[in-house]
């Protein structure tokens, strides 16, 4: 008996520059989730290397990965993944808590960021008191509050109706215009079309990499 090693990704060589707005596309099982986990420093590759902002992520241990996620990555999930018992403000504050920012400072930063995504009136609402679109805005604010190098969104509109989905994509457009680096992982062509570069993954390989705007 032995275990078969499955390589979800092979010979993927990829460079994303600061300020790019990239969509990663691929059917399920293509390896796009693995790529996203690697880019998001949630996982380290079994081989090869990943350099983020001058840090060799591929050689980091658990705690260093946690630190770099905190500093460099802002996650936006399909299911929002807000903490249900905490209000919007507290959710947005969380990355700053882990970064060790003083309470008064992080409160101000969280309030500012919530205002920038249009939720100034809703800061003390808990997730279940907010609509899907509002929840995703809280999640975006949480991703932004630490001023990360990358905004990494995994199917950000997957749980939203098309209207609120469009609102979120408009928000992304805005953020991209402000110079944020955004990576959206999606299987929806329409969503990917709104980015400026589409990387298609198939069977663990990069099938295409095109700039569209």
């Amino acid at each position: 008996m032995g275990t078969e090693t499955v390589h979800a990704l092979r010979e993927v060589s990829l460079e994303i520059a600061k300020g790019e707005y990239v969509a990663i596309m691929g059917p399920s099982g293509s390896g796009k989730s693995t790529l996203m986990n690697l880019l998001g420093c949630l996982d380290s590759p079994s081989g090869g290397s990943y350099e983020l902002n001058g840090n060799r992520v591929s050689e980091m241990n658990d705690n260093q990965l946690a630190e770099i996620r905190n500093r460099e990555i802002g996650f936006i999930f399909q299911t929002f993944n807000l903490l249900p018992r905490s209000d919007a403000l507290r959710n947005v504050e969380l990355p700053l808590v882990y970064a060790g920012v003083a309470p008064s400072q992080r409160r101000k930063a969280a309030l500012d960021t919530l205002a920038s995504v249009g939720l100034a009136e809703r800061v003390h609402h808990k997730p279940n008191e907010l609509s899907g679109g509002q929840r995703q805005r809280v999640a975006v604010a949480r991703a932004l509050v630490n001023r990360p190098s990358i905004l990494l969104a995994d199917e950000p509109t997957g749980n939203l109706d098309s209207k609120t989905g469009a609102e979120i994509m408009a928000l992304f457009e805005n953020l991209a215009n402000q110079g944020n680096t955004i990576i959206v992982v999606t299987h929806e062509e329409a969503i990917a079309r709104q980015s400026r570069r589409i990387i298609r993954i198939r069977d663990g390989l990069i099938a295409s990499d095109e700039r569209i705007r």
Partner: protein
Amino acid sequence: MNLFTELREGLSISWSAIRANKLRSALTTLGIVIGIVTVTLMGTAIQGLNSSFVQSVSSIGADVLFVDRRNWINQSAQDWIRGQKRPPLTLAMADGLARQLTMASAIAPVADDNADVKYKKRRSSGVNIIGTTENYEITMGLTVETGRFLTAGECSGGRPVCVLGAMAATNLFQGESPLGEKILIGQHQFEVVGVLEKLGGMAGNGGVDDQIIIPLPQFTQNLDHNPDYEMQIKISHVEQMEDAVEEVRVVMRRLRQLPPGTPDNFAINQQDQFLKLFHQLAGTIGGVGLFITGLSLFVGGIGIMNIMFVSVAERTREIGVRKAIGAKRRTILLQFLIEAASICLLGGLIALAIAWPATLLLNKVMPSSLSLGIVGVALLVSLVTGVLSGFFPAWRAARMNPVDALRNE
């Protein structure tokens, strides 16, 4: 993030988690409450037993030597038999000791027996009757509450008078004044001339309080013609105890006419022998008691561990999110440890709130109070229980892979 912020964050997170699952937290806490209550009460009871015993024993006085035929405490059956075979002490030895000892301030020969005592219609059975001299007041450190103690005259062969211990007096007279009244000890009438102050001591057995003291000649005449005497010797200076013991030994050997090289055929007993034995015994009883009650705390701890596993499993996704956002292993570990510790500490506080009135109740049976030491230990134990039983679940949470945790539904 420094440790202080982590602790504060952990506290606020765990507090909201505890509030979110009120019933579950309450039930889990209950296990700890029961554990801490039993351990606390056990601790208090042991302490109470200790102090009441020490109180009884110290009424004997640390500066008094008791010369007996036998050792108070026998290490083996042979010891006891050897003691039984020794010749009894005689009254003449009391005189010899009084004449030859230089370091003693008072010597009292003491004989004792149990007898039924009657006053009018009231009976008290099995009362400890002490036949002795006026020096007994000194050697035992007694204080007379009303009336007076036996006089030297009475003790060298006078009227049948007696002094009652506090408990013996209440039992027979129930509030009436005993002074001048006549009581029957066995078949013989004695006039009460004094009542002793209450000494207190072991619960149930009145000890020194349930005794009646009569002059030695009356004792040998009416109760026991040939009693087994004990010589009580009060030492002038307690710091010379060892020398005094040696002097008593030398004098006793001379009085007993023991040739050099033969072993002593008497025993010099002291209070601290008792104390030593008691502390040994109390240590064992306390250890076993605490172990048994500790088991209930252990069960409570298992409850905590169980519920923390549930809590970790339930919040796998939350753990994934926190990790994705930048929580380190230590942060997650601390979060769950604090949660477990908070539940236990809460349990400890509730337990103390229950144990406090319970010790007041216990106090009716034996001297007991919830000492600050026990409070501190109880809180510490509950905290440690929380940390220990929370550690394994917290460790599991801390080691979760964020990718897997996020995928969890």
